[in-house]
């Protein structure tokens, strides 16, 4: 085993003189007074390895001993990860003692003593390869598949699988025979290096299925798909985190992985507190039971921040291989990019734009590419939908992280400061935002089949009305209320109707916070019907009060349970008001 001695310390960059071979990204432990601090090799020059330490380096001295592990940063995968709160290196936060995070304390992400009820899937004689299902155990409500470890690259023959029964994760549950006739025992644990994608699937087609999030401005206008990628850039205070949280609460996914990356601890605490309480409408159980939180809050060590997004992605890939729909949310990817910048800076690399490393765009697009919809070897499907937030410096979208992400992600949900200032939440800008998936023929076909036959036409029509309304508003602002034809007011207020009723959504109201697709379809059709109606006004002064009345009733509808008597009463009232001014 290679060892080394600390030679230099620049903040969390530690230079180590090594005695033997080391590899890039190899994990090592720096021993300081009996405590082992984990570090990762990020550059090697001659016999000096530059390592980034995942902990505070206070008190570290030249001459301290270093042990190398001969492997990269790995996660330990197996049943028992659901509902856990991990740090960026997959340590179980709940197992750590004391109020403060003690340096060098690494906890086991899995529980070796728990018993799991194993049911075999494969049987003796089956030919299997990496990622194939050998059996399953129930983990909360997920049917957790025990797979052929991803590191096993060849084809194997199943020699034996244990019968149904209760086993620990360390017990051998199957024996596989390789082509040379060698027997390999397999238990429920496997390890995988986080920086390398898991590709134990057959095929990765273009995604085509809508992923409902319950957020109208997304589902209706710019839909996300299963296995799709998207990002939410926005200045601080625009509601990135609130939007992500409401997606996580309502999205139509089998499980949620939240990577809280370099953000506020109180926001993570909100997840810890709320998720175990919130009901999951799909399973009737608690939301936390289908959630894993990987958190490296902004005050936790910087180097582990980069690791945290990879840890979360690898866990997502593991569950995807069980045929699950996984939704991965990362807040915020800018903090991860900043962590890269800090290290690049300490290594005195030549800086790229805004002092970020030159390969930032490549790193970001490689990461987004790990999401996707896949067909597994056995024909089942699984997906990782990835939505990241970006915190652009100064709210300016022309900065390296936003630009690099724009190239990689297919959906763009731009949060606008102006909308946030006027409390139009979610502050997703309906004009700047886009979903490339709305142009995919397979997605169009899916939507038109599953929502209604003219859905995509309706959606594009809605976008047109919003755009025309904005143009009309600009003219009104320049020329004055009475300086424009009456039709401009009509146009503006029709777009305002869509904005206030469809786009704006009260994330804190128990009815309005999540809208199922059938309700979105119903409301959009209703609103478009009003927008397509010709109204008669005598003067511009009549336009606003009239539309305010319409909007008020529509908002009451949004606050009311769908298609109840109360809801229908509001609708009847609405239709009555529409008739008042309908052109004959």
């Amino acid at each position, binding site marked *: 085993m290679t060892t080394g001695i600390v*030679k*230099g*310390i620049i*903040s969390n960059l530690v*230079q180590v003189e090594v005695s033997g071979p080391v590899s890039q990204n190899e994990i090592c432990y720096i021993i300081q007074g009996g405590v082992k601090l984990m570090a990762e090799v990020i550059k090697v020059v001659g016999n000096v390895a530059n390592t980034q330490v995942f902990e505070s*380096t*206070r*008190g570290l*001295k*030249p*001459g301290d001993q270093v042990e190398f592990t001969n492997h990269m940063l790995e996660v330990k995968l197996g049943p028992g990860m659901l509902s856990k*709160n991990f740090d960026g290196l997959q340590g179980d*936060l*709940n197992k750590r003692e*004391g*109020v*403060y*995070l*003690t*340096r060098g304390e690494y906890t086991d992400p899995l529980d070796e003593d728990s018993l799991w009820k194993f049911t075999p899937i494969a049987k003796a004689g089956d030919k299997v390869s990496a990622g194939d299902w050998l059996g399953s155990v129930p983990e909360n409500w997920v049917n957790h598949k025990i797979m052929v470890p991803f590191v096993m690259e060849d084809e194997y023959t199943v020699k034996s699988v244990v019968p149904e029964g209760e086993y620990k994760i360390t017990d051998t549950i199957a024996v596989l025979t390789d082509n040379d006739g060698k027997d390999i025992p397999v238990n429920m644990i496997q390890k995988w290096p986080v920086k390398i994608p898991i590709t134990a699937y057959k095929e990765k087609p273009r995604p085509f299925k809508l992923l409902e999030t319950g957020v109208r401005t997304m589902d209706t206008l710019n839909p996300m798909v299963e296995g799709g990628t998207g990002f939410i850039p926005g*200045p*601080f*205070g625009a509601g990135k985190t609130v939007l992500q949280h409401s997606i996580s609460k309502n999205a139509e996914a089998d499980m949620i992985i939240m990577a809280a990356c*370099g953000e*506020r*601890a*109180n926001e*993570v*605490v909100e997840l810890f507190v709320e998720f175990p309480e919130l009901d999951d409408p799909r399973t009737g159980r608690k939301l936390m039971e289908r959630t894993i939180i990987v*958190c490296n*809050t*902004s*005050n936790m060590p*910087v180097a582990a921040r980069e690791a945290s997004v990879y840890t979360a992605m690898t866990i997502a890939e593991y569950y995807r291989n069980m045929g699950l729909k996984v939704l991965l949310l990362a807040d915020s990817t800018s*903090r991860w990019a*900043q962590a890269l*910048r*800090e290290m690049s*800076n*300490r290594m005195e690399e030549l800086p790229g734009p805004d*002092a970020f490393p030159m390969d930032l765009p490549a790193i970001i697009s490689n990461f987004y590419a790990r999401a996707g919809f896949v067909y597994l070897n056995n024909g089942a499907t699984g997906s990782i939908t990835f939505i990241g937030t970006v915190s652009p*410096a*100064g*709210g*300016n979208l022309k900065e390296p992280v936003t630009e690099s992400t724009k190239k990689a992600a297919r959906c763009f949900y731009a949060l606008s400061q102006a909308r946030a*200032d*006027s*409390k139009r939440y979610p502050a997703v800008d309906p004009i700047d935002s886009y979903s490339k998936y709305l142009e995919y023929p397979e997605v169009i076909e899916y939507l038109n089949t599953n929502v209604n036959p003219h859905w995509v036409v309706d959606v594009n029509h809605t976008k047109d009305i919003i755009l025309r309304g904005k143009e009309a508003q600009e003219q009104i602002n320049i020329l*004055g*209320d*009475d300086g424009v034809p009456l039709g401009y007011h009509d146009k503006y207020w029709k777009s305002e109707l869509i904005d206030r009723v469809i786009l704006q959504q009260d994330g*804190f109201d128990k009815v309005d916070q999540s809208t199922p697709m059938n309700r979105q379809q119903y409301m959009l059709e209703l609103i478009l019907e009003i927008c397509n109606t010709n109204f008669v006004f005598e003067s511009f*002064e009549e336009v*606003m*009060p009239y539309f*305010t*009345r319409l909007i*008020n009733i529509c*908002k009451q509808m949004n*606050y009311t349970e769908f298609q109840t008597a109360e809801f229908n009463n509001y609708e009847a009232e609405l239709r009555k008001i529409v008739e008042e001014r309908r052109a004959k």
Partner: protein
Amino acid sequence: METQAFQKIYTKLTQITKATCSVQATGVGNEELATVAGRLAQVVKIVGDNVTLQIFAGTEGIGTDAEVVFFGKAPTLKVSDELGGRFFNAYGEPIDGGPEIEGKEVEIGGPSVNPVRRKQPSELIATGIAGIDLNNTLVTGQKIPFFADPDQPYNEVMAMVALRAQSDKIILGGMGLSNDDYLLYKNTFENAGVIDRIVSFVNTTENPTVERLLVPDMALTAAEYFALEKHEKVLVLLTDMTLYCDALSIVSNRMDQIPSKDSMPGSLYSDLAKLYEKAVQFPDGGSITIIAVTTLSGGDITHAIPDNTGYITEGQLFLKRDTDIGKVIVDPFRSLSRLKQLVIGKKTREDHPQVMNTAVRLYADAANAKTKLENGFDLSDYDIRVLDFAKEYSEQILAIDVNISTDEMLDRTWALFQKYFNRAEIGIKDEFMSLYWKKE
């Protein structure tokens, strides 16, 4: 700090810059404290046996033969109940003529709280200021800065908030505080008779710049003692964080680091987060709430300092002079308290969230009407009504010298709604309309 036996002394400096020096030394730990020619310094970089130190008081007059003494430990503060009512400099040494503090010696800038050991903040801090209590409610365990231009009365407002807020201890961290402002705080606290609840760590403009890097850590270390060990509600005031960041950029510049946006170090976000994230609500009642000041240059919040701060803190408060009423208000548009959702409508009256949003929306309409007026357009009847509403709203509710309970704020807002608007224009849930809308 005195030299003790068995400490290694080095006398050969290899490099001196305005803020740092380097010395050939062995067996030195990272972030270790030392003195260089009697001035306090801290190890910031070690390459082989070349150790770089940042000298807090500056390097003026330091010679290449200066004596460097290493202490074998990071900077510390002695904590005990004796801290109450005392004034200290950036090193934690008394500056009020009182005796040295006896107590447990703890390293400043210690580890972070395990997020799973935190409690979700849920207790509101009432200040009597509607711009805060009604529109941007503060919660214990929150961190929030005032974004203010240097000419705004932020120190006065902060002192007022500190006194009105219910807390067991107030810890003032003053960085680059002018002597006048230092005395403002001192006198305000003394006059209010609360001096025993106050602990101050002060670096004034008369002290060396780099020294102020220690102030927030000192203040927060004291805060952690009271919050964690004494279960007290601690309010930490940090003013001015912009000057703290300036000191950071000086040191990183002297260490030849590549600057990122606005000449700030690339690690600015992490550096600030380490401080602000000390704000915490512990399960047993103790809490640290941080109210800071970040001065802006010409109101520019896209500058790296306010920008990074905004991404870390749980909202921000802007002061604004309302020319219609000639008073200072907390700007209802740009201010935001992210944690208010945890208490409004829960710890306060149920109609609070909707009343707050509606009033702000109407206030925004008034701003639009004002623009119309300035551009010479005719005002509609609605425009005139929102303008009148906005003025009364500012005067009776928002003005910073109004000191009323949250219920009173809500009642006054409802009264104004009814004075100027009809039901449809208000657009609040029928449930609340039936309770609070008295006219028909």
